[in-house]
């Protein structure tokens, strides 16, 4: 069960439209390493986690990622507000406009629609946690690419926050994985010959 909180995790207030930049940032909305995939992957994987620490971490990180999805959607929306048709053409936004106007759609930076394979649920806690460690690094890398592309501090600041959270999540997943591996080791019994 979730309840909505009428606020963003981090404030976003973008003054200037930049639809070309929005088309790159939208990849963290519905791209291969985006927040939608991350959130629903963790929330789906949590059912088959073997201990309470793992269940809690996946539940709570999956929930935070939903908040990040909202932040990325907000950035895309604020970058594409209040456009005129000449601006849409000038910024190369006409292809996106043809299908979605200025709606926020789940797609990657290249325009490919969201692929549910991003949810990657193996049902094996070790495999799933390694998947998540890689996913957090890929998302961190994507945010760094976006920060390099962006030239507007209004956009860069929230992107830096989102990048930092990927690193924190990576850290927590590492601790969850180590806990599970330690538990497995504890159950190994070595016979000692006398």
């Amino acid at each position, binding site marked *: 069960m979730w*309840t*909505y*909180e009428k606020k963003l995790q981090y*404030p976003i207030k973008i*003054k200037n439209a930049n639809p070309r930049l929005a088309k790159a940032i939208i990849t963290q909305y519905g791209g291969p390493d985006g927040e939608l995939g991350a959130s629903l992957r963790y929330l789906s994987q949590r059912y088959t986690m073997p201990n309470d620490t793992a269940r809690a971490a996946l539940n709570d990180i999956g929930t935070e990622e939903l908040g990040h999805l*909202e932040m990325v959607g907000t950035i895309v*929306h*604020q970058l594409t507000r209040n456009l005129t048709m000449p601006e849409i053409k000038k910024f190369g936004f006409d292809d996106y406009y043809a299908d979605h106007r200025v709606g926020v759609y789940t797609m990657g930076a290249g325009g490919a629609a969201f692929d549910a394979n991003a949810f990657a649920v193996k049902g094996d806690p070790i495999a799933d946690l390694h998947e998540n460690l890689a996913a957090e690094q890929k998302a961190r890398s994507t945010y760094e690419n976006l920060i390099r592309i962006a030239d507007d501090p209004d956009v860069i600041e929230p992107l830096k926050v989102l990048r930092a959270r990927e690193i924190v999540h990576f850290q927590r997943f590492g601790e969850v994985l180590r806990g599970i591996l330690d538990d497995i080791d504890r159950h190994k019994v070595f016979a000692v010959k006398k």
Partner: protein
Amino acid sequence: MNRNREMMLREIQELDFRVQDLRLYLDTHPQETAAAEAYNTAVKKGKAMTDHYEKLYGAVTPTGGGDATARRWVEGPWPWQSYKAGKEEGAYHVDV
């Protein structure tokens, strides 16, 4: 959104961020006393600040803000909206 409202919301966001980050930390370090204390302090401060904000500016969650929320929950600005040149975004056309 007036200046005071924005500043108060920002403080709530800071406190709730602290809660969120400590929550994840405590998920994997439940025995750490200092983190648990910091978490409890941030939760209490966040709640108090949110209560205060909700009395002035309306609900943050559907169960906050008292009886007025029944009717006033729908009122913006919603979080993805912001203000341009002192005007609410709603005054701008977003569908071209």
